């Protein structure tokens, strides 16, 4: 019989001490990030989708159309094309498409890029209604940023 009452007492005691913990938290400041009101800042190494880097002075792309990123991508989401232009050494970039629907944000492309022509963007609000919204024309985006 004594064991029975002890069990009840211990049980109630454990519940009350547990409630004590939650009660203490009730009076502590909020730790949650108030997201839509306070936007988080992404750390430097945050891996968003890739973006072409513009030259600091001219704003032109650093891409030399070597195709290493296209080759390195495990999912095949990068399409690069270039053409020979007279008077310019090497190839000139004509197309840089990223199919973000396939991208898994691994960043192997950025590592493989010798001239440092691609980087990660810090964008994280990426919602859309159509698949086409995720086929990014990175060359066009670079030119738009230049303006």
């Amino acid at each position, binding site marked *: 019989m004594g064991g029975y009452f002890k069990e009840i007492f211990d049980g109630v005691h454990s519940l009350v*001490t547990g409630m004590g*913990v939650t009660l203490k938290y009730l009076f502590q400041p909020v730790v949650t990030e108030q997201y839509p009101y306070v936007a988080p800042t992404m750390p430097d190494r945050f891996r968003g989708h890739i973006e072409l880097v513009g030259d600091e002075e001219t704003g032109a792309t650093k891409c030399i159309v070597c195709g290493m990123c296209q080759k390195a991508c*495990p999912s095949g989401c990068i399409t690069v094309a270039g053409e020979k232009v007279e008077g310019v050494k090497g190839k000139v970039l004509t197309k840089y498409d990223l199919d973000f629907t396939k991208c*898994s944000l691994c960043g*192997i492309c950025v590592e493989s890029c010798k001239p440092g022509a691609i980087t990660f963007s810090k964008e994280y609000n990426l919602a859309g209604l159509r698949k086409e919204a995720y086929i990014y024309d990175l060359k066009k985006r670079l030119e738009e940023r230049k303006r």
Partner: protein
Amino acid sequence: MSEMACDKHKETFVLNMGPQHPATHGVLRVKLVMDGEYIVEAEPVLGYIHRMHEKMGENRTWAQFMPNMGRLDYLGALSYNHGYAAAVERAAGIAVPERAEYIRVMTVELNRISSHLLWMGAYLLDLGGFTPLLYAFDDREKILDMLERVTGSRLTYCYFRFGGLYNDVDDQFLAEAKGFVARLRSRLPMYHTLVTKNVILMQRLKGIGVIDADMCRRYGVTGPVARGSGLNYDVRKNEPYSVYPQFDFDVPVYTEGDSMARYMVRMDEIEQSLRIVEQAIDGLPDGPVMAEKVPKIVKPPKGDYYHAVEAARGSFGVRLVSNGTNTPYRMKLRSPTYSNLSLLAEVAKGVTVADAVAFMGSLDLVIPEIDR
């Protein structure tokens, strides 16, 4: 079992259990044959999120397979990174600088803590307690923020490279990690007051889902589940890899074999991981984080290689068969929860649905890892 239920077709019915909504991250269906509230037969039905990871390994280069490792066990992805990187390094004979190994161990252990914290929160949620989840997530969030700064992602890490790391850690990370160790140490007693000593939790876990050591051996069970059944098996101690032999830590073992024992093993493991992280921060050597002579295109010589690591859920092994080209010939991934789940059919026989949930949760299942 009632008398009527002896004839299966008369008094039993089939109940589907498990997270099985198409939009959930992990889809597992457990087909239960029920006699009233008691389970007569439990059959896990797998394959809903099978993504052919092993096959994918065969048609991409060794380095290109690395991001896949974050998609197996998305809660403890760094151990998987470690397992695969170490297997390829063993195959190709690449030596990793000591600083890189220290950082690997540090981040893997932090990841293990975050995984155990999430398990605790989600498990208690399964059992009907909502509050602990919020406290566990508060601590877990600190780890994710730290790792995000260093690795660039919060969940699907792809941080290790053959021969080292993608990036070095900075002083801020070390300071944060040190602060976190102190913070979680001070908070662990709170978890024990709130959860472990709670009478409802004890009533629901003690003596539920008892697994003995022999059964663990038969099913190939590893990790906290095996250690909760008295099996002192931890890959970090039994087949030491990386720089683990340099650290002083214990392997918590409980002999009861019930859900409570598995809970306690994980809670004690958090403490041990904190010890490892602390030692790794203090003893972090200087030097490069990437081996010097790593070939641009890794081509391990012909052969059959295996490397196992201790992931948050048990022993994770990678078996590589190389034919000397730049793609693996065969990539076999041994995941711990697949073996751990197979216990369910035997243990769930004759228990109530509520107890089956308490048992299944204590296995710490991550479904994408079962269906690779």
